[in-house]
């Protein structure tokens, strides 16, 4: 082997051994048993109901952008829960450990609190990585996946198979980080990793390797997804959907995915070099032998900063859809909004240094990056003002979705204020690496979570055909907000008290009171999680009462509200012709909302495929085998991945065609199912003197699929 690996290694199992499974750990062992039991119960239930075939056909092998979106969101929610449990453990440790003396729980081997330092390090590292990359990102990608094609009037994403591949690779990353709980351990160096502590000499375990391969998988999945989004929006827009009419959410998806496509490769390269150091014994980021550890920090944040905008921009887009709908007004300053979105995306490239002003790069460089960072505040401010003026002269109804959207707006104000403090080196030196920074970015990331909850409530009826329970949505909002206030206001205060981040033992007893308040806040968060479960349960129970038609809220504005709820698998029976920026609002105003097509055309659809799932599985194996240095398994997994890719590419997918008659029948049935009466049948383009067209006339569906990217 090229590098010396401390501890035993065998050709068959690599570094894996029974002792790597923490069966003695008082937290992990019971948790493992619990998970196994729940898992077995689930498998048993599915088998009893005979659901495997259904799951396989309709979900595991699907290439439908809506189903993949739902799976992304499901994954995001599961990981959000896992990340929340991590957060709960972090808070509990600090609350128990604070102050002098040895107050540790001896049975768990802790001097302070209930966790050893190393275990604590793993928990916050996993927390950060999971929340940013496996909770926020999949939630946003999932919502983009569902909504973007609908908003531009497309049948699916440009590359449906690639879409499935992106999902399964991301899921493989999630599986890898989850398995690190029970087999070996995870990195303890924070979600972004520090050089050179992640080198073999200072992190001799497998934790950092898990971290590398988890991140690599997610990065791969997200990059593939971003290509797909960009191709979709560029090539698949319905006739009349000019760039000037693109809904703001789609605009924000475009800008976010440009960021993702250009920045994720930086991360992949940085991590590949870390991998080279750890596996091949190179010296890219070592302190000695000409390595440059500051290079890692630069490369990481060169991705890391754009990444935070990759996650916030779609959230901004969601606010841009929810607020106008419930204010019953168009978005204020559409053009300014789009410009601001791209300004943020552009500037996000030249600010990465603000994450390490303390490296001592001198006043000229510091100033440049400080001013550049503050420039981001300008378009962000514009956006806030524009949302505010969208409500001005509006008619605001405070639905649950609107609650979440407005909550996000206030969090953004606090996050922006504190961000503008951090962007100034003179101030940054005092609070960098303190929990003040932690509170800052939690305001921003919670802004995303609020927007996502708002968006889930807002678009739920479009996907499932019924609305979520409003009362429980609001109860959850208030509980969640109380939790946020109780956890994060003390965190800002602790930052001003000088508490640095990542302390498994907070040494100053002055902090104790605020830790208790935070723990209370966590308890309220737990209640909000419970209320979320109740929300889902009550809504699904009462779904018959809450059935909605195409235009679920009655005041919606963009194109996705034109097609039936739930959306049929082919999205639109006939591709609509776009006449205005807020197409549905425009049709409502002119009384064309209920027009159905009078004739149909055949639709070309992609076939399902299990290959994406297989590749996800082989890549998971590859990550696992590399982590444990099981070379033979790595080789097999890599070969299998490549073989599957080649085989699938050679085979291609001709897709299948749904005949016009079949579409007509499905459309009729869907109309009968919907509570709101479908309107009159009007000849296509046959009203208002032929100037206005409801459905595409010039381009047949067959033509469209041939104009677009060819291979499904």
């Amino acid at each position, binding site marked *: 082997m090229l590098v010396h690996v401390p*501890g035993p290694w065998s050709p068959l199992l690599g570094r894996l051994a029974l002792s790597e499974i923490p069966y003695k750990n008082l937290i992990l062992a019971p948790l493992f048993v619990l998970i196994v039991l729940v898992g077995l119960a689930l498998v048993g239930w599915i088998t009893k109901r005979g659901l495997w075939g259904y799951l396989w056909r309709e979900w595991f092998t699907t290439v439908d952008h809506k189903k993949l979106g739902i799976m992304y969101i499901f994954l995001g929610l599961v990981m959000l829960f896992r990340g929340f449990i991590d957060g709960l453990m972090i808070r509990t440790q600090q609350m128990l450990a604070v102050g002098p003396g*040895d107050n540790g729980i*001896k049975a768990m081997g*802790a*001097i302070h609190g209930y966790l*050893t*330092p190393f275990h604590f390090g793993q928990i916050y590292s996993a927390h950060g990585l999971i929340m940013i990359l496996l909770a926020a990102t999949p939630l946003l990608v999932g919502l983009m996946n569902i909504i973007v094609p609908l908003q531009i009037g497309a049948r699916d994403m440009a590359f449906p198979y690639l879409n499935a591949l992106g999902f399964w690779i991301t899921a493989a990353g999630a599986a890898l980080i989850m398995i690190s709980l029970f087999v070996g351990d995870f990195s303890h160096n924070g979600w972004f990793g*520090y050089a*050179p*502590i992640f080198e073999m*000499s*200072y*992190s*001799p*375990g497998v934790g950092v390797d898990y971290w590398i391969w988890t991140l690599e998988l997610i990065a791969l999945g997200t990059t593939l997804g971003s290509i797909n989004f960009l191709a979709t929006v560029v090539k698949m827009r319905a006739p009349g959907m000019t760039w000037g009419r693109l809904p703001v959410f789609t605009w924000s998806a475009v800008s976010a995915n440009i960021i993702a496509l250009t920045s994720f490769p930086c991360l992949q390269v940085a991590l590949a070099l870390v991998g080279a150091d750890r596996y091949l014994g190179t010296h890219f980021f070592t*302190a*000695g032998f000409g390595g440059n*550890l*500051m290079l890692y920090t630069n490369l990481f944040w060169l991705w890391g900063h754009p990444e935070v905008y990759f996650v916030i921009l779609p959230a901004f887009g969601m606010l841009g859809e929810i607020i106008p709908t419930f204010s*019953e*007004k168009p978005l204020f*300053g559409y053009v300014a909004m789009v410009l601001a979105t791209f300004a943020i995306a552009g500037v996000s490239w030249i600010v990465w240094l603000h994450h*390490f002003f*303390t*490296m*001592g790069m*001198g006043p000229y460089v510091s*100033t440049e990056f400080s001013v550049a960072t*503050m420039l981001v505040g300008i378009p962000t*401010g514009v956006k806030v*003002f524009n949302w*505010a003026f969208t*409500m*001005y*002269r*509006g*008619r*605001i109804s*405070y639905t649950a979705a609107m609650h979440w959207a*407005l909550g996000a*707006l206030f969090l953004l*104000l606090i996050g922006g*204020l504190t961000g503008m*403090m951090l*962007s*100034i080196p*003179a*101030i940054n*030196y*005092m*609070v*960098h690496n303190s929990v003040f920074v932690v509170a800052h970015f939690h305001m921003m990331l919670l802004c995303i979570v609020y927007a996502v909850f708002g968006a889930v409530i807002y678009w739920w009826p479009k996907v499932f055909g019924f609305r979520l329970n409003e009362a429980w949505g609001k109860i959850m909002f208030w509980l969640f907000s109380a939790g946020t206030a109780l956890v994060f*206001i003390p965190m800002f205060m602790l930052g*001003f*008290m*000088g508490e*640095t981040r*990542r302390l498994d033992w907070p*040494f100053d007893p002055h*902090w104790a009171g605020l830790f208790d308040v935070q723990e209370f806040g966590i308890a309220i968060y737990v209640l909000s999680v419970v209320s979320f479960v109740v929300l889902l349960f009550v809504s699904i129970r009462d779904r018959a009462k809450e059935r909605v038609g195409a235009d679920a809220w009655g005041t919606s504005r963009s194109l996705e509200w034109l097609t039936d709820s739930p959306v049929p698998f082919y999205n639109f029976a006939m591709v609509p012709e776009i006449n205005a920026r807020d197409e549905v609002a425009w049709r409502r105003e002119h009384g064309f909302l209920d027009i159905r097509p009078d004739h149909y055309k055949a639709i070309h659809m992609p076939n399902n495929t299990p290959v994406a799932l297989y590749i996800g599985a082989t890549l998971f194996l590859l990550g696992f085998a590399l982590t444990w240095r099981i070379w033979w398994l790595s080789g097999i997994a890599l070969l299998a991945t490549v073989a599957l890719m080649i085989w699938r590419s050679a085979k291609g997918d001709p897709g299948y065609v749904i005949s016009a008659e079949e579409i007509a029948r499905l459309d009729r049935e869907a109309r009968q199912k919907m509570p709101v009466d479908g309107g009159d049948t009007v000849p296509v383009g046959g009203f208002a003197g032929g100037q206005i067209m409801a459905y595409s006339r010039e381009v047949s569906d067959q033509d469209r699929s041939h104009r677009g990217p060819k291979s499904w």
Partner: protein
Amino acid sequence: MTTKKWLQMGQYAAILLTTMLLGGCARHSPWWIFDPKGVGARASYDYMMIDIAVMLSIVGLTAIMIVWFMIRYRKGGGGGKYDGKWSHSMTIEFFTWGIPIAAVAFLSWAVAINGSFALNPYNPTVITHTMKPKGDPVDVDVIATDWQWLFIYPQFHHIAVANELVVPAHTPVFFKLTSTAVTTDFFVPQLVGMIDVMPGMRTKDALEVDHRGSYQGIAADYCGAGTSWMLFKTKVVSMRDFHRWVKTAEAQPETMNYHQFNEFARPYINVHYKTPIYGHVEPGLFNHVILEVMNGKKWPLPMFMTENMYAYLQKQAKEHRA
């Protein structure tokens, strides 16, 4: 109903904010950032207040405006006139861009640019230009190990002290910093902001304190299992007391050459708050360490200090209790 709740939330926030700011004025307050005792920390504090004032006036007014819109334009009640078509106004657009631009321009000049020079760690003009020091500057070489601090005073017979920093008041202190194994941050919240200490490299920082006392120093960046214990007290004493301390330190029999340093730098969690003083260390130890690290010297972490620290920590805890 909902608006009332929003207002209530605002009230709580206001109360919390005032307690927070009042807390900053109390004597010996735990609000270290609001209670600066060093020249650099005070300058940072001043810049922070300017920044907060400017930003809070904008963000606060915006929040009030939003709440007002929320109340006035709510459906069925607010009394605001509904205009479902209105979506643009050049005048408003002018202000929505103009206000942030003006604020950023002002902050760039007043705090970002000025502050970066005033508090440049390598040459903080608040210390080097504006202050009239009462004595000659004191140099301190700082070496961070896994997980201890070593402070060397090259001007004073190369005395050194571990895990405790002693400096005279009213006198500039210039630091050179490096690390043996991994990166961390040197930070004394009430005196001086953070600066990275990196293996194989040298950074600089400077300090001037105008209040005698004892201040907590912290390793602010995560650097492994011992991070939380990697603390040091900064004792700020009068010049006379400082020289007295130097005399006693010089009299200490313990010395340290590179070989002994090699032992000292092995991973060690300082749970017992040991602060050994060395009467003399090898001159040039600081540069020697940097050179060794550049040439690949490492102090690797043994496995028992990573995955399974149980045994190690229990041993340490037993010693601690004894």
